């Protein structure tokens, strides 16, 4: 099967890729937040290796699209700004993963 033979429907998984997640920096952030309950800015900084400005900008974007929530909480009497994956974010990550699996399958099929 060639790439052209797959038709427009078959290419849909590629068109459906969520651009808000697809950027590597944002994908790293969401993967980290999907793995834990909540984290602060420093942990995201040390684990992703992004610069402070870059990380802050990506976090703003993710908050804007509703994929993460930002709350100020007292943990052991210390005020902390905590980042969590929202329900919309969880759904978006799951959908992204399913789409990417389809894309990989499509690209593997078109190589044959």
């Amino acid at each position, binding site marked *: 099967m060639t790439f052209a033979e797959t038709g427009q429907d078959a290419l849909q998984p590629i068109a459906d890729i969520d651009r808000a997640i697809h950027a590597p920096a944002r994908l790293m952030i969401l993967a980290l937040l999907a793995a834990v309950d909540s*984290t602060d800015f420093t942990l995201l*900084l040390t684990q992703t290796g992004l610069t402070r400005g870059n990380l802050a900008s990506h976090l703003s974007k993710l908050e804007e699209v509703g994929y993460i929530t930002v709350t100020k909480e007292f943990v052991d009497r210390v005020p902390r700004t905590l980042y969590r994956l929202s329900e919309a974010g969880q759904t978006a990550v*799951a959908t992204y993963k399913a789409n990417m699996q389809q894309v990989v399958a499509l690209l593997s099929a078109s190589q044959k």
Partner: protein
Amino acid sequence: MSQTVDFEQLKRKLYLSYHRDGILDLAVGLTILGFGISMAMDVGATIVFSWIGLFLYAPLKSAITIPRLGFVQFESESKRKTNLIYRLVLGLGTFALFFGLVIFLWADNLPPDFTTWLRQYHMLVLGALPAIALAVTAWRTGVYRLLVDALLIVVIILAGIQLQIAEPTYVMVAGGVLSLIGLGLLLSFMRRYPAQKEADNDLR
């Protein structure tokens, strides 16, 4: 389509990084060392030395690990409560085991052979308490380094008994070795994760 994505491997790696700071090893080591010093001084009030390690764990985590690596809550509120109950049960179970043995020994209710063995190896039984707690924690959390700590405690105490070294000495050696392991891990962690600027957590 499933709405859950498995990030267990990532979580596990992060969890191991978070506990590679050696603070737990250091706290347990200082507790045992403090207990050994208390035994050597033979003054009841000096038992407080053995609490130092326990009270140091949380402040060290807050002062060293969190500013460098960042703060993370691995589990949801309800799971954290379950884990707290597990830790309480583990702690109480360990102490119940110890005091149960003491009471049985005191009341002379144990078989004579076992009593003789216990009188010779009572320090091994005492050392087994932190060793069991460390081994169970290693099994529950996947931080298998703690199994080495547990084994070291048992081996050092057993060697001390066999070589007929004074009890406080080998207890202090066990505590000292664990403290050194913890300190080494802590220094390596501090090199790996330099201190972050204070404003990092509050950009918003």
